[in-house]
């Protein structure tokens, strides 16, 4: 969940609340706050990017305090025009001018940059889907802006630099280039935005220094490049509607015959029941529309229905249920009052067959003197290699730790490792485990298995055979065994267990070479059953 830092004075000025009241009000808006080093840290849910900056956060807070609806900003034509050429890797660009942003402090500037970064992270999908450029309007070399793809050999003045550099150098030689340089590059070409023959941005990587915003910047030009026109436009709406809250107005930019920002309200016509029913509450129509207005929607009753105009910055609102959630949030989840779904209590519950078998097996094995252990099903390739099971391994593509980078193909493998770590335990050590395994048999197969083991000064086949037989008889499995072979167990002391003629597991004394390969100094006898399969055979 995104965490944003704000200066307390900014939030206090924007909401008129003290920090304690602010914290309480924000909690009602799903936001948790913490104070840290002169900042208020606010955890904001990813579905509310409109609250990623002080003005937007305050707009929501003031709604809970009674301020209603949302007023679209005043607009005029800016005279700016973006000519869009074919950019195959990132076809879309939108832009807008905001007059009167008035960057009057370092604190606000820092918030703007944070806003941009958080939008990049979420809606922008780490700039892959969309990226934002902020420019000082007064520094734009020309009102005619061109979005095109150009040679990476072209030079520009990278943001924060004093020296011009080739685009290639930025893509290949900087941190930002390493992170984002591959997103839109096409061979030796890369998208650029230029004005008056100068590159003002290399999206989605870096802007030029010549249009840099700074304390003192009054009016801004914002561009959004993207792989989806709708996403680009939505992000632009969120930015514009927040920046304009500082008292300014919007300048339209013409792009391929369309004027941006669109700032279009979504119109929803809903019946009261559609927004109250899913929550399970009843309210008068007037109360319902008041709540929605305080959640900053524009609402007009039309007969028995509500005409709801959703502000353009609310990217998370698609359906009546989204309005319902806002009503529930306004009332407060604790105040809604949980209600027992009486109808559902008439249902008769049941346990899954396999889970029930596992429970019976557990109780029987405890009766037979075995203690249950639980091990991770992720294990190390080295263990499977040592046990000769590597062929079966299901490997993880992107492990964090190599010790947990393959799934165990049977439980005995991780059980032997556990026993090697438990060699000091009081003998005899009798253990079992029930859990998942996965292996390759053409495709990936995963099953629930049972394994049991005995470790002692001396252990024989019979020591594991007797309790296994006892278990199988007790669960009503008509079984037989036949001599078999395994990479883990001694030849002539290994058997396969069959139920209804189908192999369901094995038992045997573990080979001394296997024991020593996992560092075991006590003999061990093991058995393993495929509980998933056994469960289906017992039906």
């Amino acid at each position, binding site marked *: 969940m995104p965490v944003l830092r704000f200066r307390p004075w900014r939030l206090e000025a924007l909401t008129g609340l003290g920090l304690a009241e602010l914290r309480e009000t924000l909690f009602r808006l799903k936001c948790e706050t913490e104070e840290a080093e002169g900042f208020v840290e606010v955890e904001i849910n990813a579905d509310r990017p409109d609250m990623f900056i002080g003005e937007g956060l305050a707009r929501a807070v003031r709604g809970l305090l009674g301020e209603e609806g949302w007023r679209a900003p005043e607009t005029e034509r800016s005279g700016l025009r973006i000519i869009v050429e074919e950019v195959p890797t990132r076809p879309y660009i939108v832009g807008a001018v905001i007059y009167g942003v008035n960057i009057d402090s370092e604190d606000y500037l820092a918030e703007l940059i944070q806003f941009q970064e958080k939008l990049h992270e979420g809606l922008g999908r780490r700039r892959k*889907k969309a990226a934002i450029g902020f420019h000082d309007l007064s520094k734009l070399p020309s009102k005619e802006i061109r979005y095109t793809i150009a040679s990476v050999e072209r030079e520009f003045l990278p943001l924060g630099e004093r020296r011009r550099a080739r685009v290639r150098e930025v893509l290949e030689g900087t941190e930002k280039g390493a992170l984002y340089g591959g997103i839109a590059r096409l061979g030796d070409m890369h998208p650029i935005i230029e004005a008056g023959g100068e590159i003002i941005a290399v999206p989605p990587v870096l802007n030029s220094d010549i249009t840099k915003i700074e304390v003192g910047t009054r009016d801004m030009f914002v561009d959004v490049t993207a792989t989806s026109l709708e996403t680009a436009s939505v992000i632009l709406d969120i930015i514009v509607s927040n920046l304009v809250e500082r008292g300014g107005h919007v300048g339209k930019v013409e792009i391929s015959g369309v004027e941006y920002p669109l700032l279009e309200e979504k119109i929803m016509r809903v019946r009261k029941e559609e927004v109250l029913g899913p929550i399970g509450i009843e309210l008068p129509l007037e109360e319902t529309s008041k709540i929605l207005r305080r959640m900053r929607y524009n609402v007009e009753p039309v007969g028995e229905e509500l005409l709801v105009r959703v502000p353009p910055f609310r990217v998370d609102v698609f359906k009546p249920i989204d309005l319902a959630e806002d009503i529930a949030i306004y009332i407060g989840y604790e105040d809604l009052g949980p209600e027992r779904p009486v109808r559902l209590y008439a249902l008769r519950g049941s*346990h899954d067959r396999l889970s029930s078998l596992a429970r019976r097996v557990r109780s029987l094995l405890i009766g*037979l003197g075995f203690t249950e252990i639980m091990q991770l099903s992720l294990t190390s390739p080295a263990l499977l290699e040592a046990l000769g099971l590597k062929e079966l391994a299901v490997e993880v*593509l992107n492990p964090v730790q190599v010790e947990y980078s393959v799934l165990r193909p049977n439980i005995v493998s991780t059980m032997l490792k556990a026993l090697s770590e*438990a060699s000091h335990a009081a003998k005899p050590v009798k253990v079992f485990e*029930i859990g998942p395994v996965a292996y390759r048999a053409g495709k990936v197969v995963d099953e629930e298995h049972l394994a049991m083991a005995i470790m002692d000064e001396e252990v024989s086949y019979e020591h594991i055979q007797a309790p296994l037989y006892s278990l199988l008889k007790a669960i009503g499995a008509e079984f037989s065994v036949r001599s078999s072979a395994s990479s883990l167990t001694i030849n002539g002391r290994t058997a396969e267990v069959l139920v209804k003629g189908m192999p369901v597991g094995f038992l045997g004394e573990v080979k001394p070479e296997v024991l020593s390969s996992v560092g075991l100094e006590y003999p061990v006898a093991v058995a393993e059953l495929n509980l998933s399969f056994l469960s289906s055979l017992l039906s």
Partner: protein
Amino acid sequence: MKERGFTSGSLSQASSLLGLDRSRLASTFMLLKEKGILEVSESVTKRPRLTERGKEALARGLPEEMLVELLGEKGEVGLAELPAILGREASVAVGQARRKGLVAVEGGRVKLLIPKEEAMRRASVLRKALEECSEGKFPAKELYEEAKSRGLVEETEERELLVRVTRDLEEVMREARVEVSRLTSAMLRSGSWRQYVFRSYDVTAEPPLVLPARAHFLAEFIEQLRDVFKEMGFREVRGSVVELELFNFDLLFQAQDHPAREIHDSLWVKGEPADLSEYGELVERVAEIHERSWKYKWDPKVAARLVLRSQTTAVSARMLITRPKPPMRIFTIGRVYRRDAVDATHLPEFHQLDGIEGYPGYTFRELLGTLKDVFERLGLEVKFKPAYFPFTEPSVEGYVKLPSGRWLELFGAGLFRPEVLEMAGVDYPVGAWGFGIERLAAATYGIADIRVLYTSDVDFIRKFRARR
């Protein structure tokens, strides 16, 4: 005693009856008396007994008899000659014979007063009495007194133990036991256990350490959850740990280009994508709704990739496409996998519980009601907070109050978004939730390091003391 029918009598009688040595028997009787089985009393019997002098008189005759015999032969004898003939008894003989009127002394000479036969008869009366005394009988009183006064007899007292059985011996036999340390099967089979009592132990002494074979405490916790949900009317289902992205993400309305689906969060399976052909119609609906809602080109190849399921909501998604008949309640418990390095609060895999429920008319408040009930049944207070998840609306995050008083952020929940239901083809509202089990289990058991749940220390599990 029981067998020989002894109920009362003296020690001597008992000794001869039982064929046991008197002294051993006497001490046994005293023991039995202490146990309240017998009454023991002492009788004192008086008997005459001959003195040495009496014995001599009985053997040789009384001095006066010897004097009468002498006078019968010689007619008369001078007093001075008598000691030479009768020894030291001479004067006694003369004294007694005169007292009894048998002889007279005249002029220093002793002579019979009556005929010898008559004198002998009278003199021997006392000897007959001595004979009786030697047999332990009292003779006539004046004779006994005479013999006593003459030092021929003395009186003795004979003491004897008298025993009377006061309890039912059958019963006593049942109670009387020899001490043994163990009861054996042989004792039970022979019935000999009746003779024994068991030696007392120091029952407060420390026993040797034994450890129970037992279920893993995490498994016990999971079983408890399964029971709670079954009791509430939920049907349990299971799914695969290796899952298609289609169910882990796409059906849950997570856009393919969304950062949450990026390689940093989930674990993918190496190898070829799976085949989606069996989900033909579903795939079409998913494609259409994703493209309409998220404005991007949906790629079936991405949906076909195999992932280690990152949430058991994938199982709920699979249940949704079966369009369960309402009203319905379904839950699942299973392992999920995340791209996390192992530390005290993270594991790359853990268990999750997911539940779904719904019917036409189901509401968000009812979802909150179910969740409140679930955690109340686990003894936990619950608190709700608005949240955001891509596949639910409204969404809620739940906190539970731990026994320590701390609030633990535990679950995510919400009503499935209309887009999710539309993809699955479900036409009634469905509430859903999921939570990680390990965090709750660790917190309830007071375990600070979550790795302990997957310990290989078998003795730790065997000794585990639940702090619930």
